[in-house]
């Protein structure tokens, strides 16, 4: 049975549409519209904002400083997405082909960190990566081992281990974002792989293709919609990430969200912050438009 026309049952339609529309308009569309209007305003005095319809805020956003931060945010988000894809794909494969008994528990294992508080996870990572954290101690032990091996074969030992700075730099931001977003990637990948017709893989193996070739030529093309979904679901939040660059990054690892935040707190330049927010939203729209174009291609075939 198809959907009902709204005129056929106006009373029920009103009962379900009014609360939804009222809430969405009042608490989502209106706040967004306020940001949009502000982005065309300018500061006039300490707490005054004049809505002059100026484009100065957008012009300022195209200055090299802000363009480079936008570019850097894209680069970081793309790198994070790529690492998540490489790390997550085998995990999704393993979950898909795990036994009935194990599969739900492996899924739960991926989802539990996703449910754990983001701030707690970031803090946990900061402990581990700290100047005297376990990551540094582990690297130190490896270094010591390498040094020992070198003396064993009669070479000069390595100089003594200096703890490396693993926190408050760009490396930490990428590492932290991968840590936070990995579950986002694995779950859609799993959903796509799970729907795959396994006899195709078997056919490919029977016809003599190796496992690697089968994965690259059969599994990846068939799972493409899931891969695209996973990429989008990772890329979008990574692009707008605030907490990880704020807590784990150094002075040069600011991403666009940190710049926006600064306009609203320290710099107190709301119109400019509003313009940057909308530029970020437009960037998301472009990404989503690209994805839906990609999705239409196989349907045409």
């Amino acid at each position, binding site marked *: *049975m*198809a*959907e009902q*026309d*709204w005129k056929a*049952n106006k*009373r029920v*339609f009103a009962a*379900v*549409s009014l609360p*939804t529309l009222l*809430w*969405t308009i009042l608490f*989502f569309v209106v*706040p*967004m519209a*306020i*940001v949009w209007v502000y982005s065309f305003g300018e500061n006039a005095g300490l707490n005054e904002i004049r809505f002059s319809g100026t484009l100065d805020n957008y012009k300022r956003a195209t200055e090299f400083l802000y363009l480079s931060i936008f570019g850097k945010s894209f680069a970081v988000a793309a790198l994070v997405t790529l690492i998540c894809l490489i*790390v997550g794909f*085998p995990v999704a*494969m*393993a979950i898909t*082909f795990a*036994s009935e008994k194990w*599969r*739900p528990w492996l*899924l*739960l294992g991926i*989802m539990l960190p996703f*449910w*754990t*508080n*983001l*701030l*707690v996870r970031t*803090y*946990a990572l900061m*402990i*581990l990566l700290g100047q*005297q*954290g*376990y990551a540094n101690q582990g690297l130190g032990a490896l270094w010591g081992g390498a040094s020992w091996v070198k003396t064993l074969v009669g070479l000069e030992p390595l100089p003594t281990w200096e703890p490396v700075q693993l926190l408050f730099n760009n490396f930490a931001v990428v590492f932290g974002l991968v*840590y936070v977003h990995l579950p986002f990637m694995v*779950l859609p990948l799993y959903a796509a792989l799970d729907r795959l017709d396994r006899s195709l893989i*078997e056919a490919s193996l029977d016809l003599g293709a190796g496992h690697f070739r089968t994965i690259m030529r059969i599994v990846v093309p068939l799972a493409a919609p899931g891969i695209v979904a996973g990429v989008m679901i990772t890329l979008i*939040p990574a*692009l707008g990430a*605030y*907490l990880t660059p704020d807590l784990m990054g150094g002075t040069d690892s600011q991403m666009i*969200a940190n710049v926006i935040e600064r306009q*609203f707190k320290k710099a107190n330049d*709301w119109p400019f*912050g*509003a313009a940057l*927010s*909308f530029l*970020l*939203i437009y960037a*998301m729209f472009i990404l*989503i438009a690209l994805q839906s174009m990609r999705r239409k291609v196989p349907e045409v075939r």
Partner: protein
Amino acid sequence: MALFRRTPIAPLEYSRTLWMRLWVGAVMLFLYAPLIVLMIFSFNDSKRNVVWRGFTMKYYDKALNNDALIEALVNSLTIAALATIFSLILGAIAAVLLWRFRFPFKAAVDGTISLPIIVPEICMGVAFLMFFAKGLNWPTDLIWPLNLGAITIAHITFCFPFVTMVVRSRLASFNREQEEAAKDLGAGEWQMFRDVLIPHMKPALVAGALLSFTLSLDDFVITYFTSGPDTITFPVKVYSMLRFSVTPEVNAASTILIILTIALTAIALKLQGVKTIAETH
């Protein structure tokens, strides 16, 4: 290895090959090691998270006697509970609207409802900051729990689209003949909704409730922009503790929150079973 392997590995049993197991094991270690280290060090009798100096519960004592921290936790749980209830109602209503009716501008309505899922948190935070401060002149000196109103409204706005999404995919499997049968048997609209549709939606409602509760409890960015000086939530409090002084108290507080998450998951598992929970995500 040979001892444990009863049958040879079939070509498609990727998860039984050694490389795959090592990879999955490494990823799980990557995901869980930081959390486990954090939890262990919350019992460490030292000011720094470096060397183990013996077992102590004193940081739990300190955290539990830290009134500001407890207040923040109570605020967070109150907001999460309220946001969950309202998101479930609103989300289910929106799902029914989009599932049942054909109406003008449906695609636009559908898109707008799911927009909060993709709009970056920072932009939503900024929007709520402006909306409550400039748009509404929202009073900031209300008594508890009314002073949590602004944060709760913000949380409902970004939680309910997730409920809609989950409920809608569940409704897709609803056999509309059941609806007709109910009507033939004399059920009114409301009775049909209560006795036929809601039971069918139940697994999605449980999943949606879990999702809303954790999303609300987890949120930092939007709350950071919406909260006033008297309405600190747990993540905002932990953030300021992290910024200004890292003490093992933060470890203790974080451990409490992790255990709360695990407990919630366990309850959801009891209600739904691991398979359904895994599938609804």
